[in-house]
């Protein structure tokens, strides 16, 4: 997971909310809750980084929290909110 180049699916919109954000996939019509502002920041920054690891580092997420973030990102991949970018460097 840490070395993957992930990005937000182009048909997914993020809507900020007090608890984090709502992610809505216009294709699958699924709604997912991002339950922490830090998860929202990381998800929002994935596109600007070559790997998940780089996104976590740039968002200042402590390394002991990475497994939890990887879990959250994995489930977002499973619901197709995130996908592997092909335009990676």
């Amino acid at each position, binding site marked *: 997971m840490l070395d993957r180049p992930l990005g937000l699916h182009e048909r997914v*919109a993020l*809507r900020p909310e*007090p608890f984090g954000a*709502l992610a809505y996939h*216009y294709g699958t019509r699924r709604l997912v809750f991002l339950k*922490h502002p830090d998860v929202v920041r990381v998800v929002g920054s994935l596109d600007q980084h070559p790997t998940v690891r780089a996104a976590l580092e740039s968002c200042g997420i402590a390394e002991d929290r990475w497994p939890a973030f990887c879990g959250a990102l994995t489930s977002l991949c499973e619901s197709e909110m995130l996908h592997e970018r092909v335009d990676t460097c």
Partner: protein
Amino acid sequence: MSASTLVDQMKRGLDAPICLTWELTYACNLECVHCLSSSGRRDPRELTTDEAKAVLDELRALQVFYINIGGGEPMVRRDFFELVEYAIGNDIGVKFSTNGAFIDADKARRLAAMDYLDIQISLDGTDAVTNDAVRGEGSYDLARRAMDHLADAGFGPFKISVVVTRHNVDQLDEFKALADGYGAQLRVTRLRPSGRGAESWHDLHPTNAQQRQIYEWLLAHGEDVLTGDSFFHLNALGESLPGLNMCGAGRVVCLIDPIGDVYACPFVIHDQFKAGSVRDAGGFTAVWRESELFTSLREPESAGACASCGSYDACQGGCMAAKFFTGLPLDGPDPECVSGHGEAALLAVSSAPRPMMDHSKPGRASTSVPGATQLVTLTRK
């Protein structure tokens, strides 16, 4: 963050609704005895096409991802397709509820060609006798014909929407088989004593034994059957049904009625639950974010008479609308409380609030109740 704290956050309200119902018109070709909005006649104050588009612009800015359009019969509006296409073109998905009367082969093809559109056809019996007793003569055939047209047009998985009553509860398996046969998705929701349902509820609502039957059937079918989270009062029977298990009124859901009034949910069309109007200064956004009513609905609720009941955490005291229109206090048991507390409380009720905004067609028996004359006058002003 655990699931329970997420629900706590949602109870404090979101920046915009997740699930917004918009009744486009009070006009309807049918006169269902349980109609939540007492629909029939068009209201002359109905939002114009331009006003409706301005509301859609606002919803887009608020990032409301999808809306549920209903009525009345929404397809009665001449600008129905124009509004649906405008919404979809602005990234607002549409699910609309219809009785199907206006879905012919042509319309079905037009609907099938649209992306990001869900259709929900109402059906309250798997045979004409059961269905038509509630929805009116001929309505079963209209609905089935619409389903056939959608299937022929290759629309894909539309939804069949059933209000569970005392008379169709034994047909749940047949409804599921019907939906499966069409490749459709079944949606079953709870009967509310709202609109014309205030009168018919007492004869139609499921018995206590049937409530357990519904609960077990829903548990067995899980997320395969949609419920609009409407049966959370049954969670007091044991394991929780899928869903958020909370009343979303004014917190994550609301209703915009045909004349632009904003209510806490589709089941409480009454002044006491009216937060404002999209025609007010500040529009829908100000109503959602600042209205006194919605602010108060987002404050922690009191368990009231239910505080000493061990099931309160499971059932949350049930449905606000069901309590209100049966004359029960809002901080007490639901009229269909599975422990029987609601039934006992109902015996002490001497009068219940009358639903407002009655647009029933003239000549209905329901308009002959005390107070109805005054209500009709009010809606005509």
